[in-house]
């Protein structure tokens, strides 16, 4: 119940901050357009469709992670997180509330990214595949929000969040199979890639866009993404700090 109170508050705040809301939706759309310009320069033999949706997922992953981490750090530096905890809100409710609240934004981002990619790159999938593609990006957004909350524990101010970008987001680009097949990497690098949630989202998306797709092939990857959500929720519940000290 209190989870929904927090989620309601976050939605009200988002609604009130039109500039932030607009930027959060427009920024991924602009990046997808740049992606289109970038891929247009490639020879037609390059299978662009296998990169488009996974890169869209990366953009949602990056933005959800970054925005959520910064906002939780802001809550801490302004003293509202401490006040929430003293006032009777519990850590799991706060994390749940944040996730549900920002999921609203992540849903809009995922939908916008998905449909812009389909339109710009002339991609055509069945309704069922589209729904599953949306679900993958959406689940990845939940993981990103929780990862953001977890990482915020190690940051004393908003600036401290930025070193986590090269630590988490950049390895996701190079080691998760987004650009090159992770099996071609050295074992240790492939292992790091497999520890990052984007790896599983990319696996599912690549399977989904194959004509011979079967749900069984992606079952484990879906389960791992759900496992990430559960694990990060538990971890963040234990580590969420109320003060900056």
């Amino acid at each position, binding site marked *: 119940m209190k989870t929904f109170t927090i989620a309601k508050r976050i939605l009200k705040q988002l609604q009130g901050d039109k500039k932030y809301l607009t930027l959060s939706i427009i920024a991924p759309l602009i990046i997808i357009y740049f992606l289109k310009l970038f891929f247009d320069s490639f020879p037609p033999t390059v299978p662009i469709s296998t990169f488009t949706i996974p890169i869209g997922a990366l953009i949602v992953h990056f933005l959800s992670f970054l925005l959520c981490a910064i906002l939780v750090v802001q809550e801490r530096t*302004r003293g509202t997180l*401490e006040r929430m905890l003293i006032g009777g809100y519990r850590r799991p409710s706060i994390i749940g509330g944040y996730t549900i609240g920002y999921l609203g934004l992540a849903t809009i981002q995922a939908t916008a990214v998905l449909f812009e990619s389909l339109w710009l790159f002339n991609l055509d999938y069945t309704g069922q595949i589209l729904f599953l593609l949306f679900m993958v990006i959406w689940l990845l957004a939940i993981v990103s929000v929780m990862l953001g909350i977890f990482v915020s524990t190690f940051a004393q101010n908003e600036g401290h969040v930025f070193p986590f970008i090269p630590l988490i987001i950049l390895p996701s680009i190079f080691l998760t199979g987004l650009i090159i097949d992770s099996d071609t990497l050295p074992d240790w690098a492939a292992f790091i890639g497999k520890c990052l949630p984007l790896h599983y989202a990319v696996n599912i998306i690549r399977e989904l866009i194959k004509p011979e797709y079967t749900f069984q092939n992606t079952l484990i990857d879906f389960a791992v993404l759900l496992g990430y959500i559960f694990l990060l929720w538990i971890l963040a519940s234990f580590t969420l700090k109320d003060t900056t000290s």
Partner: protein
Amino acid sequence: MKPTKGQVNVLGLDPLRDKWKLRNKIGYMPQSPALYDDLSAKNNIMFFGEAQNVSDLEKKTDAMLAFTELTSRANDLVRSFSGGMKKRVSLCCALIHQPRIVFLDEPTAAIDPHLKLQSWKLFRELAKTGVTLFLSTHLMDEALLCDEVAILSNGQIIALDTPQKLLARGKTILNYSENGESKQCTMDSTPESLARVLHQLGLNQNITAISLNPSTIESIVLDMLREKEESTNKQ
């Protein structure tokens, strides 16, 4: 902070075992407003009220806003409020669940004299209703407005008394002129001491002027801290 030994009982509850029950009876107003700037005053108060499952929340929120004279700005974003108004919203958030104990961290720091006066009127009204207020301050003249004052040094209480008794720990300097000569005598800051000194002087016609320089609460506290420091150094 984890306890090492001993037992604590607050309002008949164990703070470790009954943590959540106790939070329902305690209000906290931090030094910084700790509010959501992009929410209205009313939404801020209701958000913290919902944490404590306050019944008739909207009605109680309106009553709190009226109590702090903020009714006309209830639906305005906190972002547009002055520092003093934010403090009042913050106080409403601390009081919305009608706590029995309230902690106020420097509630009147950096606010204008009029608002300070108004805040103290509020605190007094609350105290009259049976609420215990713990107020931290660096302003000694403000500490004197409390029923009891605790002086803290390095996390230890070095004095706990009524403001009158704390003031009585100081000395008063009596300056007077006798036959054109300026004289001075030091005495305890009690009316009885003054009477005793005046008796000794006989208050004869030659004493033409008397002025008193009692110790201020700041100087008394500074003396206490100095004494504490000296005793610590000796150990």
